[in-house]
């Protein structure tokens, strides 16, 4: 009896995770498996879909654009999130709460509605363009351009950059800066030699998350963008729903999957090591 109960205790934890793993298997692993399978087997067995993907100019243009939009969105997020997260980490409790609220408010309305707001603001007769005109500037085409997509995506993804950055910055001991200053270091030098390196793990974690999420973005580029700013997700949807070409759509999906997890695999060991370092200094 004690033996079986001990065995039960050892296996118990695994049993507890089985229902969740079953959901994952049924609704994620099997569907993704089907996609991979079809990319190699439809219409006939072989690599034809991949050859087609990498030999068609439109596809490569879109793939490159997907990466470049994601890159610029990530850069914009880092630039905007850095001062903001810094202010959050040094502000008093009340101001900090207000700053956190501003980060969370965008989550209070549904994602689709938020994109609607950007359509309203960016349209040719929208607020931004009318403000520009009244200030004597020329009209800027924002809607259905890459610029518009980048502006909208950056706003949607900014919280994912601010939060990890804030978590790391909060753990930085500000007395290190005082020490450097008291030893005669210039503020600029103090920042670049002490604060920036200590905050880099947060930048790295946030940038990885933002870049990966941006690669798979669908709704925002679809509603804010035009033919000149199509991203890979839209192309996949077109292949499957409009052209009913599961093989080609599947191959595109596999390319996007490999890109996403490839970047994650490259970045994650890096992130872990850095995180332990920042954890150690806390």
């Amino acid at each position, binding site marked *: 009896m004690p033996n079986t109960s001990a065995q039960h205790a050892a296996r118990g934890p695994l049993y507890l995770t089985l229902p969740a793993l079953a959901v994952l298997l049924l*609704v*994620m692993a*099997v569907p993704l498996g089907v996609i991979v399978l079809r990319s190699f087997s439809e219409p006939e067995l072989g690599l034809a879909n991949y050859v087609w993907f990498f030999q068609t100019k439109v596809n490569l243009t879109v793939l490159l654009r997907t990466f470049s939009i994601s890159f610029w969105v990530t850069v914009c997020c880092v630039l905007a999130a850095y001062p903001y997260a810094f*202010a959050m980490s040094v502000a008093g409790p009340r101001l900090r709460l207000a700053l956190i609220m501003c980060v969370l408010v965008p989550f209070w309305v549904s994602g689709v*509605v938020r994109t609607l*707001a950007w359509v*309203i603001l960016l349209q040719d007769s929208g607020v931004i363009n009318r403000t520009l005109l009244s200030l004597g500037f020329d009209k800027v085409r924002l809607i259905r351009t890459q610029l518009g997509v980048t502006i909208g995506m950056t*706003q949607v993804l900014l*919280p994912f950059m601010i939060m990890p950055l804030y978590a790391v910055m909060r753990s930085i001991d500000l007395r290190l800066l005082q020490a450097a200053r008291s030893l005669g270091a210039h503020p600029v030098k103090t920042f670049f030699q002490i604060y920036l390196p200590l905050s880099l793990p947060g930048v790295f974690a946030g940038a990885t998350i933002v870049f990966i999420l941006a*690669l798979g973005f669908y709704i925002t580029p679809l509603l804010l963008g035009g033919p000149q700013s199509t991203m890979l997700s839209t192309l996949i949807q077109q292949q499957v729903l409009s052209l009913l070409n599961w093989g080609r759509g599947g191959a595109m999906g596999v390319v996007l999957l490999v890109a996403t997890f490839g970047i994650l695999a490259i970045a994650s060991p890096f992130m872990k090591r850095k995180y332990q370092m920042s954890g150690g200094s806390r």
Partner: protein
Amino acid sequence: MKLNLPKLLLGLTCLLIAIWLVAPTLVVIPMSFAGQKSLAFPPKGFSLQWYENFFTNPQWFGSLIVSAKVACMVAVVATVVGTMAAIGIERMKGRAGGLIRAVLITPMIVPGVVLAVGIYAVYLDTQLVGTWIGYVLAHTLLAIPFVVIAVGANLAVFDARLEIAAASLGASRLSTFFSVTLPLILPGILSGALFAFVTSFDEVIVSLFITSPQLKTLPVQIFSSMTRDADPTVAAVGSLIFLGTSVIIGLGLIFGMKGRRT
């Protein structure tokens, strides 16, 4: 003065970023009272017709009911399944726990459209397109990571010796769980359930693929309305969601503070 200039610049930058974050959310509110059917900003005239349309048009109100039902079911299923998994992971020894945790979080990372296409393929073969089970299963998958993270964070600060103490005093495993463990990790479970509800209520990409004219969720209805014409009803929906969330969060803050004081 030399010290204050950087501070002033930082403050100004943060103010601009805060406006950029918040303003697009608030633009929706005046739009919802527009007098005419257009999405021009600022809106002309004043009317409540878009709110009226939302509550009387079965297309709109029906999709709200569908979304609310699906989200409630997802909140229950994902919270139970996710909490069990989080407890299992916490009790596992060695690397297995971390590995299973990493696996359970992948639905957050898989690109939405790729997942949606795959689920659509499987659902076509199993006749799950446009069904309640189809929605609940797909949304539960997307909600599990949030529950595992929320409950896991709570379990990490939970003192496992309390369970041993209860057991050593003669409590059975089940009564230990319900009278010691559950009350202590309840905050994590509740926030996990809230996240699960919101995830389902807001999910649009997978839903767009597995939707049917008979069974449509609210985000799908919003999306199709936006791509069809400039209907301010969308703004009315957005404002109502904003109001609802604000009330829930406001109540949470008030009760949270009261709970802390007593």
